[in-house]
């Protein structure tokens, strides 16, 4: 079916509109904005999640506002919301730990959508938000598809990438050698540097403690993927086997994509076996993570909206299945 014709068929019965909503959740009331297409029934909805870095639900440069408005004009209901402690929501300032994303917040948003009769949910999340989708996805039977933008693969807290890299590449002797450098010793007088060095040391100590206790790596996955968080691997394996479509999207120049490539070399694709056609990997030129240029934001919005609009949703189809293959798809798992 022609995309434009399909979209025309899906035109809303009345003007789309947006309004703020209160979403009850475990960590306190969350605030969201619902983009309502005005169609008589909204069985499928899109849920947008921002990443870490204390970014409110608009996302950087209103990315999620722009994406919501584009999708709602095509008949898709869209909910965006602030995590607890962020933006308009209630709750204390959160810590962004990749293995402990805000599942209760996602569940609150899902529950709100259920209350509106939504039975199928497409989630879109960037970085930490993508990890929240993976973590919550196992508990959300309505999850139909997810666009995961620059999802990190590791465990640990956001902002600890350097510490994590050191922990994996340096031996204890290497740490001590670095610590004894004059520059490092001088910087120890500065409280900010002290805090930074302590973070680096703490991550290494955690890794050492894990290797001594045998707590990690998991026996469930290949030892070659031991550096990848099990909280990432488990849903990435389980969701497609449940029929959930996953679209990984990275910038080809970013560290998270290097990690993802490394994981592919280590055999992560084996997890998708038996779920043919449900997992897709897209790359865009440059760095997607952080969305620090208008051009990359526009590209991300185009890619995500195109991917969503070509999904076979409900009784109808909004676009041909092979449309994604025709443009921009660099790899299929």
């Amino acid at each position, binding site marked *: 079916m022609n995309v434009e014709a399909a979209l025309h068929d899906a035109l809303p019965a009345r*003007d*789309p509109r947006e*309004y703020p909503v209160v979403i009850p959740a475990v960590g306190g009331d969350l605030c969201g*904005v619902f983009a309502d297409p005005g169609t008589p029934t909204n069985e499928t909805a899109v849920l947008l999640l921002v990443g870490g870095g*204390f970014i*409110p639900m608009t996302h950087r*440069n*209103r990315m999620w506002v722009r994406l919501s408005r584009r999708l*709602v004009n095509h008949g898709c209901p869209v909910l965006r919301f602030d995590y607890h402690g962020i933006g308009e929501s209630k709750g204390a300032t959160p810590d962004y730990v990749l293995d402990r994303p805000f599942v209760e917040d996602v569940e609150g948003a899902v529950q709100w959508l259920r209350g509106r009769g939504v039975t199928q949910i497409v989630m879109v999340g960037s970085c930490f938000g993508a990890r929240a989708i993976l973590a919550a996805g196992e508990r959300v039977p309505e999850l139909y598809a997810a666009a995961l933008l620059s999802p990190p693969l590791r465990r640990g807290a956001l902002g600890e990438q350097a510490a994590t890299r050191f922990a994996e590449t340096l031996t204890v002797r290497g740490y001590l050698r670095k610590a004894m450098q004059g520059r490092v010793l001088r910087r120890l007088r500065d409280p900010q540097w002290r805090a930074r060095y302590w973070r680096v040391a703490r991550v290494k100590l955690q890794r050492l403690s894990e290797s001594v206790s045998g707590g990690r790596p998991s026996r469930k996955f290949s030892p070659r993927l031991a550096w990848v968080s099990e909280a990432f691997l488990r849903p990435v394996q389980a969701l497609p086997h449940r029929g959930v479509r996953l679209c990984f999207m990275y910038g080809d120049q970013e560290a998270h994509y290097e990690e993802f490539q490394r994981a592919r070399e280590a055999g992560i694709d084996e997890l998708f076996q038996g779920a043919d056609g449900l997992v897709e990997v897209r790359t865009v030129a440059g760095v997607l993570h952080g969305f620090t240029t*208008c051009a990359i934001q526009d590209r991300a919005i185009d890619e995500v909206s195109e991917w969503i609009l070509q999904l076979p949703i409900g009784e109808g189809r909004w676009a041909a299945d092979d449309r994604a293959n025709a443009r921009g798809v660099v790899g299929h798992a």
Partner: protein
Amino acid sequence: MGAVVEAEVARRVDPSGFVEEAAIRPTGGSTVFEVAYLPAAGARIGVVICCPVLVEQLTNYRYEVLLARSLASRGVGVFRFHYRGTGHSGGEDSELSLDTMVDDALRAAERAQTRLGVDRLVLVGTRLGALVAGRVARHAPTAGLVFWAPVVDGARYLNELIRARLARELKDSRFAGAGTSAWKEELETRGWIDILGYALHSTLHRSVLHSRLDADVEGARIPALLVQFGRGDSLRPDLSRLRNALTEGGGRVDVRSIREEPAWFFPSSPMKSAPRLLKMTTEWVLTLAQ
């Protein structure tokens, strides 16, 4: 988006007694996102918060929400809004200018008086929002002004934006061969430049370039709280000029220092001094309510 038929209000009752109401309302051919904080026993005085724009809107977002809640829990009505072309409001960022921001803030001041049931307002402005608050103070019944790290000189602010862009380009190795003044040509030919993932359009650039907060508030005779951020002890020259302009007409200016420089252009971690900032601002506003 088509025209909004009517505004639906999201209402939340805070355990401390005030009600928070958020809506996206049709205004001037577009829509404006607004949040009103209504104290249980009625407001003694109202506060309108004029937020910054571009990436600083994100950096300051939570502090404005927390300030509003802090004030509302102490009996002060508060009104927050997003300028058209920003946040959840309608419109495009290409239409944003200092004039449209001031128009929106004036409308917000009127709405605040109606919604909060007050006749006196305190205007709070952070960074470029301070420039907006300073201009609105001429036309609204202003009982006080609060400036957090205000932009006093529009040209200097624009230079800071350009410097932040160059710093990002250097970090991302996107600087190669472009030269430090490539942005000027880009702004002239394309009509906008990318500042850390935000489009700074020529309309906003032009409207801010020659603006001066000290000139706008000169002789205003309005009590003001001026909050300087940073490690230095002495008042910076631009803020000193602002203080002098405010005191010239006989107005009282209280200066406070927060010994921390928030990363205005690079939102990452919350400001450690935020509780102190919120407390000092709340208490200062309460002195006007008495």
